[in-house]
Structure formats: structure tokens, C-alpha cells
């Protein structure tokens, strides 16, 4: 695989994701989503309990302490994209690494 091209692709993709989460997210529809709407219409929305992190620093896609709504949403999105990218990459790299170690020890176990 052309690795420099791959790096450019990854960087470009990440910039697109950051742009969407940081800027475009401020223009998203504020209406309830499909499930929330159905729950409201069918009368079971009130069965929902408060989320454990309902008062957390990132609750409802807003950064606590940032009052400008669009900026707050955008920043929370930026954080989310970076965290998701990092966690995802690390997890897949870890899984790959564990597997190669398992493979190395396989021949010794073979009869």
C-alpha cells in the first residue's frame, strides 16, 4: 500500500470529520429523533430515566462552561471525533498486536 498516500487520505478524512463535527453540527436539526418522537407519540417517553452523565462535562453534546451554543456543540464534536479516532485506532492496533503474539506461539504448541 502506498503509505504516504494513505497518510494523506487519513489526514484528509479526519479533517472532513472534524469540519462536520466542529462546524456543520451547529446547523443540525434540533427536532427529536425517530425513536424519541415515537416514544413521545406512544406515551412511553416518561419511562426514560436520567443518564448517569446527564450533568457531565459533555452532556448533550455541549461543553460545560462554554455558553455559545454552536461553539459548545462544535467543541464537543471536535473532542468526540479525536477521542473516537484515538480509541478506535488504539483498539484495532492492540487487537492486531495481540493476534500476532498469539500466532508466534502457535507453532510451539503444534504437535
Amino acid at each position, binding site marked *: 500500500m502506498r503509505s504516504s498516500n494513505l497518510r494523506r487520505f487519513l489526514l484528509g*478524512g479526519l479533517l472532513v470529520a472534524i469540519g462536520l463535527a466542529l462546524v456543520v453540527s451547529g446547523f443540525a*436539526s434540533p427536532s427529536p429523533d*425517530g425513536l424519541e418522537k415515537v416514544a413521545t407519540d*406512544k406515551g412511553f417517553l416518561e419511562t426514560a430515566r436520567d443518564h448517569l452523565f446527564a450533568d457531565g462535562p459533555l452532556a448533550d453534546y455541549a461543553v460545560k462552561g462554554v455558553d455559545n451554543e454552536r461553539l459548545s456543540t462544535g467543541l464537543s464534536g471536535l473532542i468526540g471525533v479525536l477521542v473516537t479516532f484515538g480509541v478506535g485506532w488504539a483498539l*484495532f492496533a492492540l487487537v492486531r498486536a495481540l493476534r500476532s503474539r498469539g500466532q508466534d506461539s502457535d507453532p510451539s504448541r503444534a504437535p
Partner: protein
Amino acid sequence: MHIPDGFINAPTSLAAGAVAAGGVGVSLRRAAQTLQEKQAPLAGLVAAYIFAVQMLNFPVAAGTSGHLLGGVLAAVLVGPWAGCICVAVVLVVQSLYADGGLTALGLNITNMAVVGVFGGWAIFWLLRRALPATKTSVVVSAGIAAGISVVLAAGSFVVEYAIGGAGNAPVGTVFAAMVGVHTLIGIGEGIITALTVGVVLGVRPDLVYGAQDLQVPLVLGTEPERAAGEVS
């Protein structure tokens, strides 16, 4: 489609947690076998992109919005095993945003990362077999499968509601309402998925798992001749 705490009772949530753990566990094992080292950052990017686009609620019917679930998008780009993990990672990160209940995480992973990814992938696979082997077919198949995957995930919620829903609304009316609104949301899912797959196919077709069969094996057959030509 993120289920909050309370919608579904504890036993059903626990059972869904077992389904989710099984699905993600098998996916981790299979992804480890198939994923190449360089694909790890790519899978991270797919997860990050899905997180971003899930923030972009688009209006559907009156007073209702929807957003990408991303299951088929992930499956077509990095394969269903890695795709399931990508969506699960997104759902876990979203817990920090109070989006989707902690006790409902198993339910949400089951609906969106297991049913959405593997159900959608099965449809994509069937469509790919039925249609000619072209890039256009990959884009069209991804779009249609993505749209249907949203309805499948909605159906999965209705099954959970039927087993352990806390509400009193009859299952039939919840089913009709969920399928109705998520058919509309599925159209958006299909468009976003088709557009994204189309762009990646245009830039780096070799990175699209669901289009691997379209890669022309251009190296082996002609290599000796070309090498000889370069030397002289």
C-alpha cells in the same frame, strides 16, 4: 435511535448485553485475523467519521429528525467485523455525551452495531451478487443496504420493546410508528452512505472492503515484462 435508560427493563437489557458482548467479541477475533496493520488507523477514521456524521440530525417528517447510524458504511469500508467494532466504539464514546443510556448500551450495540451492521452487510452482499461487478453497483448496493439496515435496527428495538418495554403502548402501534419514521430516516442513511462510499471509491478504491473483488490483479502477470523494460 439511541435508547435511554428505562425504556427497556433490566432482564431484557442484560440479555441484549450478552448479545452485544458476543457480537463484539466474535468481531474482535475475526477483525484481528483479517485486518492488516495499516488498516488500524483507517478503522479509527471510520469510527470518528461516523461519530461526526451522527451529530448531523436531518429533518424528516414534521417535528422529527434522524441521523446516520453508519453500520453499512463501516461494513462496506472496513468489513463487517471491524465495522461492528467501529459502531460499538462510537456508541461507547457517546455515553460520555449522555447519548444512549449506560444500562441500555447492550441494547444499542445490539441494534446498531450487530443487527445494523450484519443485517445490512447481508443485504449489501446479496445486492452485490445480483448486480454487475462495477463501482456503481457498490455505491448503489451500499446505499440501499444502508437504508434497509435502519429499518432492521428499528425492528430490533421493537423486539426489545415487545419483550421488556416499560411503556404501555401496544407493540403493533410501536412497530408501525418505528418502521414508518425509520423508513424515512433510512433514505437519508442511504444517501449519506452512497455519497461517502462513492467518494472513497473515487479517491482510494483499494481501501473499500466491499469492493475488493473489483481490484484488478495488475502486478503479478505483467511484472517481469515491465521490470525488464525498465532495466533496458
